[in-house]
Structure formats: structure tokens, C-alpha cells
């Protein structure tokens, strides 16, 4: 049983799944959300490089180079938004992010207002 593209794509799919799951269970901490975003992009990168290797082509790797660049830029912006958020609130827990809450949430959900509704960051 030799290692083929399929194995790499499988690893990518598992990472993709783990990152989405991580975003759901860590939805209360912004830093954790950003870390999960990086895992998501890693899954994409593994896919691209594996396919590029399968096609003996270079395009997938070029795509990966660009994804690396852009994700670094995105993280820089994201962290600076988090810093501003922290200065405003003294905390980066999304739990506290209840300024923008649906009036209807309390009607639909029996959970306390704002907490754990799907309208939070998830």
C-alpha cells in the first residue's frame, strides 16, 4: 500500500474538519478563533501541494505561496482588530460581545439573552 495523493487529501480533510470544529467549541476566545483559521488554511495548503505533486505541476505550489503571504497579512489585521477590541473592553472573550443582539433571540431561544445564540460569533 503506497502513499498516494488520496492520503494527503485525507489529512487535509481531517484538518479542515478539526478547524471548523475548533471554531465551534472555541467560539468564545478570539485568539483561538484565529488559530483555528490558520489550521483551515493549512488544510488548504496541504491539498494544493498534494495535487500539485500529483500533476507534476507547479501551479498548486505557487497558489500555496500566495496563500501563505495573504494569511500572514490577514492575521496582522486580525490581531490589530483584536488589540483595538481589547482596549475597548479589557477582555477578548466573545462572551462579552453582546452589544449587537437580536431582539428576537430571546423569543426563539430559551437561553439567556445573547449567550450561546447562533447570532454570536460562531
Amino acid at each position, binding site marked *: 500500500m503506497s502513499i*498516494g495523493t488520496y492520503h494527503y487529501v485525507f489529512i487535509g480533510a481531517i484538518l479542515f474538519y478539526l*478547524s471548523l470544529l475548533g471554531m465551534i467549541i472555541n467560539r468564545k*476566545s478570539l485568539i*483561538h478563533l484565529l*488559530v483555528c483559521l490558520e489550521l483551515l488554511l493549512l488544510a488548504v495548503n496541504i491539498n494544493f501541494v498534494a495535487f500539485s505533486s500529483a500533476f507534476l505541476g507547479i501551479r498548486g505550489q505557487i497558489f500555496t505561496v500566495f496563500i501563505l503571504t495573504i494569511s500572514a497579512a490577514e492575521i496582522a489585521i486580525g490581531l*490589530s482588530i483584536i488589540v483595538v477590541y481589547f482596549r475597548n473592553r479589557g477582555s477578548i472573550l466573545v462572551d462579552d460581545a453582546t452589544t449587537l443582539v437580536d431582539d428576537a433571540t430571546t423569543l426563539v431561544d430559551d437561553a439567556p439573552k445573547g449567550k450561546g445564540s447562533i447570532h454570536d460569533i460562531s
Partner: protein
Amino acid sequence: MIEFFNSLSFSNCMFYMFSGVIILSAVAVISVRNPVYSVLFLIVTFINAAGLFILLGAEFIAFLMVIVYVGAVAVLFLFVVMMLNIRNRPLCTINRQLKYTAIFISGIVGIEIFFLTRNWGKFSGKECINRVVENETVSNTEMIGQVLYTEYFYPFQIAGLILFVAMIGSIVLTLRKRAGVRRQVTSKQLYRTKENSLILTSPKIGEGVQ
């Protein structure tokens, strides 16, 4: 089973080792409560992913992974985590709605993995091999270098613009003028002349300068 162990060449062993560590540390990344540990496990994941890329024959990407991610992004993360003095994340409480979302997403990914398992080989028809030992006249880095600045000129420029926007954006967002901080104002310094800053007096004894 025996067939499996017979197939364990060096590169196959490495693949299983790297991917095993990747999955374990990814699980750790999403389940650890302390953000510092989370970022450190992310670094472990990236280093092992770099190992996978070397197995695939993409050395340049592997180096970039280590240099850009471990060297820059992870350090940025740690820097912000330390600077903001962030508490551990609270234990997750999963309510009904969230549970359904999780089941939905895992269902989608599960179906996807299932189809990949069943059909990939039949579909693709291209067998990929680990290309560590393959002899090539042009190295991977050289191949990338040949097209990145020629064929990919426009995307390369746009990537530059994106980095530029990220730079300006982070400065605009995080720069603040604090009250009470004494700064050097060059123009004021340059406007000072001998006339408006120096007084020559000859004070009398016992009176001092008025």
C-alpha cells in the same frame, strides 16, 4: 496487516509519523484552554506539515512554512497573547443549537471524506508517489522562481498591495495618541531662536532672577 508492514519504506514511515503528529497536535490546538499552549501546538503542526511538504517534493513551501509561520506569524500570535494578558478560554458549554451545527458540519465533512475514500483513485487515474529520491534537473525553488516573477507578475503585484494595505491598516488601527506623553516636535524645536529662548540678566545678590 503483514502487507502493511512490508510496505513500510522509509518515506512511508515518515508520512505516517508526520501525519500522526499533525492530527494529534491539531486536536491539541483546538482543545487546549491556554492560548499560549494552543499557539505552541500550532507551531508543532506547522513544522510537521513542512515535513509532509518535503515528502511531496515541495521544499520551497516547506521552508516558507517554517520561516513565515513559525518565524513570524506564530511569534506575532505569542506577542499579542502575552501583551494582552489573556485569560484561559472558558470551558465550552454546548447548547442545543450549537450541537446541531456541529453535527451538520461534521456530517458534510464525513460525506466528503467518504466519497474521497471510495472514488479518488478511480477518478483521478494519476498515482502520486513520494518524490524524495527523484532526480530532477531543475530544483523546486528554481521552478517557482522561474514563473513567480514572470507569468505570475500580476498576482505578485496584488499580493504586494495586500501586504501594503495590511501594514497601513494595522498602523491606522493600533496607533493612538495618549494624553500626557511628552513627544519631540521637530518643527517647534527648529522655530526656537536665540531671541525667544534666551534671556541675559545680571541678577543682584539676594534677589535672584525675576
